[in-house]
């Protein structure tokens, strides 16, 4: 039987290579100085969904909430096998903590309508909380299986899933719909397919169409531009190349639970970890140097 899957993905600043330049004077992160990447765990979530669909038929819808630039990550989902891509972008969603983020994502999934499985990555490398998956499951009123490794059995509306909890593993049986958060050991993500890249590299969000049209018709009046935009959007839609773009109103979200207002956690202070060159005691890599060090450690009872 076919399975309809939604995969939540996030575009994140590459935090694994943060240099001093990425930090502003006031201790906040200068996101502009960090390259945006596809959140690593989410590639595994996407792969799990695409593999399931390839085996049993169905659909894979990639969903992200983020800035307009996150369209790039959605295109990557299309290259790697997703059927449909949706961007949630709204100024009123800015400043969302994990609770507000999961609420907004849950409203978007409600609008998508039919779904059997929702896949998330285990954790995003910027906020680092691993909270959005379980919170989204609660908001949707469905069970969750975190730390997903693989499907042991898929039969009709029931799945058996193996999860890895660090000091062991377990197999859970759950009825669909179900939310899964994928570990990076779950699978080997397929690379982008060349054929799909050719096909989808022209996929665009409405905001990107507006930008492209404005660039190509710099002297056009508002009306002319609107007509040109409508034409392009119509054409993209027909060819399945429109990345849908929804705001808070389209997903019927209650503003009380979105953005800063909907976020119980508030960042009070942020401090960057500057690599302090405070200085260590240099020890020569010689017999005398090392012997002196060991002596010192014995004297101060660090070694006994």
């Amino acid at each position, binding site marked *: 039987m076919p399975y309809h899957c939604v995969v939540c993905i996030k575009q994140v600043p590459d*935090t*694994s290579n*943060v240099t001093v330049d*990425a*930090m502003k004077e006031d*201790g906040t992160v200068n996101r502009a100085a960090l390259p945006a990447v596809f959140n690593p765990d989410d590639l595994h979530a996407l792969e799990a969904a695409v593999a399931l669909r390839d085996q049993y038929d169905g659909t894979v819808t990639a969903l992200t909430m983020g800035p307009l630039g996150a369209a790039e990550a959605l295109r990557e989902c299309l290259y790697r096998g997703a059927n449909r891509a949706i961007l949630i972008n709204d100024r009123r969603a800015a400043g969302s*903590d*994990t*609770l507000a983020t999961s609420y907004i994502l849950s409203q978007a999934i409600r609008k998508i309508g039919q779904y059997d499985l929702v896949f998330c990555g285990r954790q995003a*490398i*910027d*906020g*680092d*909380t691993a*909270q959005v*998956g*379980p*919170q989204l*499951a*609660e*908001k949707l009123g469905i069970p*969750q299986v*975190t*730390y997903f490794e693989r499907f042991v059995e898929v039969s009709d509306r029931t799945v058996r899933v193996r999860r890895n*909890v660090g*000091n*062991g*593993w*377990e*197999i*859970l*049986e759950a*009825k669909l719909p179900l939310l899964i958060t994928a570990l990076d050991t779950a699978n080997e993500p397929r690379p982008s397919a060349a054929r799909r890249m050719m096909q989808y590299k022209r996929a665009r969000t409405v905001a990107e169409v507006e930008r492209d049209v404005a660039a190509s018709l710099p002297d056009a009046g508002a009306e002319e531009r609107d007509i040109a935009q409508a034409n392009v959007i119509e054409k993209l839609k027909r060819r399945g190349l429109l990345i849908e773009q929804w705001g808070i109103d389209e997903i019927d979200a209650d503003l009380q639970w979105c953005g800063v207002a909907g976020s*119980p*956690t*508030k*960042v*009070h202070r*942020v401090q*960057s*970890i500057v690599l*302090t*060159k405070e200085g*260590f*005691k*240099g*020890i*020569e*890599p*010689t*017999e005398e*140097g*090392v*012997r002196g*060090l*060991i002596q010192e*450690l*014995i004297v101060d009872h*660090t*070694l006994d």
Partner: protein
Amino acid sequence: MIEPNRQGEVWVFAEQEDESLSDVSLELCSKARELADRLKVPMAAVLAGWNVRELSYRLIAHGADTVYHIHDTRLEHYRTLPYARVVCRLVEKHKPQVVLYGATPLGRDLAPRVASEMRAGLTADCTDLEIGDYLERKSRTEHKNLLLQIRPAFGGNIIATIINYDRWPQMATVREGVMRLGEGDPRRKGTIVDEKAEFSDVDLAVRLIERHREKRKVNLKSARTIVAGGAGVGSKEEFQLIHDLAGAVGGAVGASRGAVDGGFISKDHQVGQTGTTVRPALYIACGISGAVQHRAGMEESAKIIAINWDREAPIFSVAHYGIVGELQKVIPLMIRAIKEK
């Protein structure tokens, strides 16, 4: 969601598996005790399971005034929904002001589910917790005695202080090994309150089919000295040097992810953000560059020795002693010096 209430208790979710309490739960009891004393309120633990009532006494010894205990066969092994049901109902009933969980696979599965149902805030992976005041600029309201939740984010590159002043309880997860494990006082007195659980069919719909646990073989957390090797060690064969030095100083063997990925040693030796957090009396880092994710797990060590041939390696920024040199030469010198003493 509950309203802020100044009389609310400080709670710890006591994680147990196979009738044994996780260390992090006891570490949290000590911290919660401290916070409760600052706030002048009682401290309590939530203990759910089957035949685990005895564990209450350890929680009391480590600082709990009250243990809310739920005994139910359906709670024998952890499953998200029944456990979340238990915690949510108790929070609604007793209205604690703070709830702390271990940032373990179990805690990180449970806490966000509870937070979402309670519509409360949850701060992940805190490395410190304090009590402090906060002035809300816009409304010029002063919020007194909030839980200041201090955590690294952005891959460990920043430290954020997070607060939650309007929708309570204030909840946080804390990594294992970050708070100090107190001695525990077996003479402390406390009360065990037996609570009942009620579940719907939906709560019980996910079934546990099979379960497998490994005994923790590597005990990095209690080691007084750790000798850790990184990618710079070069090979599995050369990693024997790290074992030899650990043997000479009577310490445990740790590793960076670089060494684990290189296949020099198994993952349970990994120190860092996705490994174990350690704070030994002495940490010797050999051929480890000192990426933030590694430093996050060891920089609280009392003394750090770094051996690396690259003078610019970031590991030196947290080191007390630095040896710029080739580890294959330096380590044998150290072993000899120790044996001589």
